């Protein structure tokens, strides 16, 4: 199934300063248009394919991020945008931040920067879409082989 022409995004901010979030929204506006790739910013985790996460993980939002990841249907791809989501950034040594997004969920693509530029974010989304197509093909093959076995 050819899904790489319409990936839907879910964007969540866990303890970010909003710099990377604004750049994610700016990547969807006319100048750096990511919507020409078929990307739509949806608010519903059950309809999303790609999970864009910004900001580090702290005690309050660790269960929330885990629940959002579990609510998304497979196949899915996780992109960590900004250095706070990659490793914890400059807030790594505070008393509340536990680290980057990979302390609670498995991350596939890391986009560094503070604040990450829209060009890097679009590069990350393009790679995520290619990975998503690959996972979708594997998922289809798996389902077909199970049906064949039955």
């Amino acid at each position, binding site marked *: 199934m050819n899904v790489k022409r319409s990936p839907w995004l879910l964007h969540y*901010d*866990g303890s970010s300063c909003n710099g*990377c979030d604004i750049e994610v*929204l700016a990547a969807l*506006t006319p100048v750096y248009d990511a919507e020409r790739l078929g990307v739509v910013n949806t608010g519903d985790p059950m309809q999303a394919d790609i999970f864009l996460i910004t*900001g580090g993980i702290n005690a309050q939002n660790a269960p929330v991020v885990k629940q959002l990841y579990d609510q998304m249907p497979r196949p899915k791809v996780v992109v960590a945008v900004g250095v706070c989501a990659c490793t914890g950034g*400059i*807030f790594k*040594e505070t008393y509340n*931040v536990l680290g980057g997004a990979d302390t609670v969920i498995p991350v596939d693509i890391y986009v560094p920067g503070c604040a990450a530029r829209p060009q890097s974010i679009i590069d990350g989304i393009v790679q995520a879409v290619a990975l998503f197509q690959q996972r979708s093909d594997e998922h289809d093959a798996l389902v077909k082989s199970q049906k064949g076995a039955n």
Partner: protein
Amino acid sequence: MGKKSVVPFGPQHPVLPEPLHLDLVIEDEVVEEAIPSIGFIHRGLEGLAEKRDFNEMMYIAERTCGICSFGHGLGYVEAVEHIMNVQVPDRARYLRTIWSELERLHSHLLWLGLAADAFGFESLFYEAWRIREKVLDIHEMTCGGRLIFSVNKVGGVLRDINADQQKFILDQMNVLEKEIKNIAKVFLEDYSVQSRSKGIGVLTTKQAHELGAVGPFARACGIKNDIRLTGYCAYGELDFEPIVSNDCDCYARLEVRIKELFQSIDLVRQAFAKIPAGELETKVAGFPKGEYFVRI
């Protein structure tokens, strides 16, 4: 009398990128109470002030918020300069004023875009943000970063604006003024925008005073309060009046911010006309000891 039900409005919601948890108590489809649960963005960065050098703390203070980052950095640096009794040279003060006003331009355009998105007018949201990209290009040309500038330091600024960049910025101000006039017409005179904002969200002057409102929100409720009149940086030498509206509703807040956009363009032009040549920073020795309160 209907039954009350509690609907959790979770930290992830499609309205805004920030996480906020509300427990809405709903009776017959009208929201009676909203009980907030906050603290998702708490990183504890004040605790880092004990672990970092006072010069490095400026970069951490800037990342309190990515939209108004210059303001946070400026507040921190002004407080430390006051404690250590450091006089900032004139050119640095004017440069700080210019960057402050450019940041105000980008911040108000961002707010206007998100307000338009919140009442469903997506093409106006995209138009406001397209105009905002021009301001961000100016930021990138002068400071190297689009949202987080990192040009302040205790004692002055790190970068300069040379004559070519100055000419480019003044040309862009003319272009911006024309484009903002176009969307101002839509914001203030379009029937659908007016029907979603006139008479909605009224906060009377008395209530605003009792709840401690500040900034453009308070100015839209009739309280004449603009901290720039205390004359920090170079605002004491520029000429402007605070913009106040007495209507207290959502339309008044749109109006105040749009008028402040034009005022910011005017202030940038005034600052460039008066900026003197000179040094960019003063040498600072020793460590700060004491306390001071700064308002930006």
